[in-house]
């Protein structure tokens, strides 16, 4: 589908990825149903690029991130990192690849081991992956700490002694210590206060420039995504419904869901023009039993017969602009 990229150049390539979670039903627990958290997603990230994934809760954006890290097992499809397929690697084979791809989690309170000092949390990965000689670890640790805005004396403190923003810096230092080429950031700023959120967003942007990092930035907040990402994918119930660059997404959104998302953001300007797109009704349906055809048809103001019957596929409508909607 996304053919114009040179394949050798891609840092991450996901082809038709599906991640289903079985749920047991019935008295004997035999009858199985599936939660289709990620349902046929195809994506790619070039080196140095920042891809944003935006969607509401239940859209499968976090599961997508975890599937790439192989923290949950994908049901089918392919994940390639620098052209190497990792979908069915064993734990042992996966180990060296984890160095390449690191993750920063949403909740800075539960994602750091409370019994480890911060220095140990950050250096543990360096030791395991033999990033540098044991004697150099301390220096590298201090260097990493400074990069993310922490001080040397913080090394012996425990996570509970830090504020939310600082903990997120620790999480980022932990990821950064392994010199990864891709960092998957799963809602890294949504638990932070507004003033601290700006600091962490800036840190992400600065580090990207310094280390030529690629990010996959997962968030529900389109304004945060817009600040950081050059390319944006909008997810709804396990599918990517629109994928394009930042300017196009804001100037010329095509999918009705993207338009609804844009209309829903409260703008911090009381005199701004009234909403040009229509708000949508209802809640996101359960991913256990998603609607037939286009999964958005139950909330779509333009729904037609074909939307109920046929599943739309992501199609290219312009250079770098992909939409999955029958009506376009």
């Amino acid at each position, binding site marked *: 589908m996304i053919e114009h990229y040179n394949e050798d150049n891609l840092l991450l390539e996901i082809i038709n990825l599906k991640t289903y979670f079985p749920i047991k039903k019935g008295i004997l627990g035999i009858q199985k149903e599936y939660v289709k958290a990620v349902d046929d997603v195809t994506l790619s990230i070039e080196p140095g690029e920042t891809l944003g994934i935006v969607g*509401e*809760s239940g859209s499968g954006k976090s599961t997508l991130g975890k599937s790439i890290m192989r923290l949950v097992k994908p049901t089918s499809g392919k994940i390639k990192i620098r052209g190497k397929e990792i979908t069915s690697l064993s734990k042992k084979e996966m180990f060296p690849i984890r160095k390449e791809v690191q993750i920063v989690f949403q909740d800075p309170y539960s994602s750091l081991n409370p019994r480890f000092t911060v220095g140990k949390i950050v250096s543990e990965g360096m030791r395991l992956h033999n990033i540098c000689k044991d004697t150099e670890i301390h220096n590298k640790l201090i260097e990493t700490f400074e990069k993310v805005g922490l001080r040397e004396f913080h090394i012996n403190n425990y996570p509970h002694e830090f*504020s939310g*923003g*600082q903990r997120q810096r620790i999480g980022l230092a932990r990821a950064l210590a392994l010199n990864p080429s891709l960092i998957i950031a799963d809602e890294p700023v949504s638990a932070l*206060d*507004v*003033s*601290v*959120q*700006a*600091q962490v*967003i*800036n840190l992400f*942007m*600065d580090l990207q420039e310094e280390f030529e990092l690629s990010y996959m930035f997962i968030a*529900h*907040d*389109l*304004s*945060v995504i*817009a*600040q*950081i990402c*050059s390319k944006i994918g909008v997810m709804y119930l396990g599918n990517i419904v629109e994928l394009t660059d*930042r*300017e196009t997404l*804001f*100037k010329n959104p095509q999918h009705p869901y993207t338009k*609804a*998302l*844009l*209309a*829903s*953001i*409260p*703008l*911090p*300007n*009381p*005199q*701004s023009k009234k909403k040009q797109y229509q*708000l*949508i*009704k209802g*809640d*996101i349906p359960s991913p256990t039993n998603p609607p037939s055809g286009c999964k958005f048809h139950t909330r779509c103001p333009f729904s037609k017969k074909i939307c109920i019957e046929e599943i739309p596929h992501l199609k290219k409508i312009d250079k770098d602009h992909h939409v999955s909607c029958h009506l376009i």
Partner: protein
Amino acid sequence: MSNIALEIKNLSVEFHLRGKIVKAVSNLSWKLEKGNTLGIVGESGCGKSVSSLAILKLIPNPPGKISSGSIHYEGEDIVKISDRQIRDIRGKKISMIFQEPMTSLNPLMTIGKQISELLERHFDLSKKEIQKRAKNILDLVQIPDSDRWLNGYPHEMSGGMRQRVMIAMALVCEPTVLIADEPTTALDVTTQAQVLALLNNLQKKLGTAVVMITHDLGVISETADHVIVMYAGKKVEEASVIDLFKNPKHPYTRGLMKAIPNIDQISKNKGKPKRLEEIKGIVPSLHDLPVGCAFSNRCSYVMEKCIKEDPVFEEKSKKHWASCFKDFK
């Protein structure tokens, strides 16, 4: 008749923790006009929730207590009235919507029962009438299939529906004042837009005055008529919503506005967005606030005076107040 629905004067709330006194709210005053929306903005720990809990005397005592000030509602001072009297006000005349719709509903009671309990407590109505009103209010907040949901439980509902039920419960007795404490923070953006639109419609229909407490400047700009910005337990700026966003006069408010990614600008500019302007440092703990102005250690305009004296909250331009030594034009 006065046009004021609720007025707070010099309210201070203290918490006694491990022998230390923490002033969560100090000398807060504001007026809420009938039918209007007062927005209160601030980050965590600024005292915005504590001050609203104080209005309904919901501060746990000990450790907390209202140490001074008064809350005027319908000619009475809420601070002075008895527990019995406040129970007649809570939910009937002044009601509240909380942030977390899951934990604020009783999981063991049907939706219908939770709504009718309020009506039973405050009005002398027949069972049939109560049922009818409960159904009507669910219709009003746009719960589809309201007859069925009267017998449903909170866990069967989505977050957005639960928040609608919370709104229904808050409005069923047709209060004159509604306090909404981060009512949409736990919701998705599309649901947030629906809930805000709903609140706005109901407010127009019922003439309720609303106190909208939130950390989100976007929500404030879309809902409020008049805004208060709080920092470390104090009011630092106050103005009409238009004036506040047009010309903020406190460095903290200015900082907050620059710290949020602005979609309007990002979508206009090509290329890589600029870095955000950040407010350095973190929200201070109320245990050890800096001497002088509480914002002085994070302020980019800090002067020598700021670390010695606490600036007075004064009118900087017509109906626009701020507490800062610097005058922003």
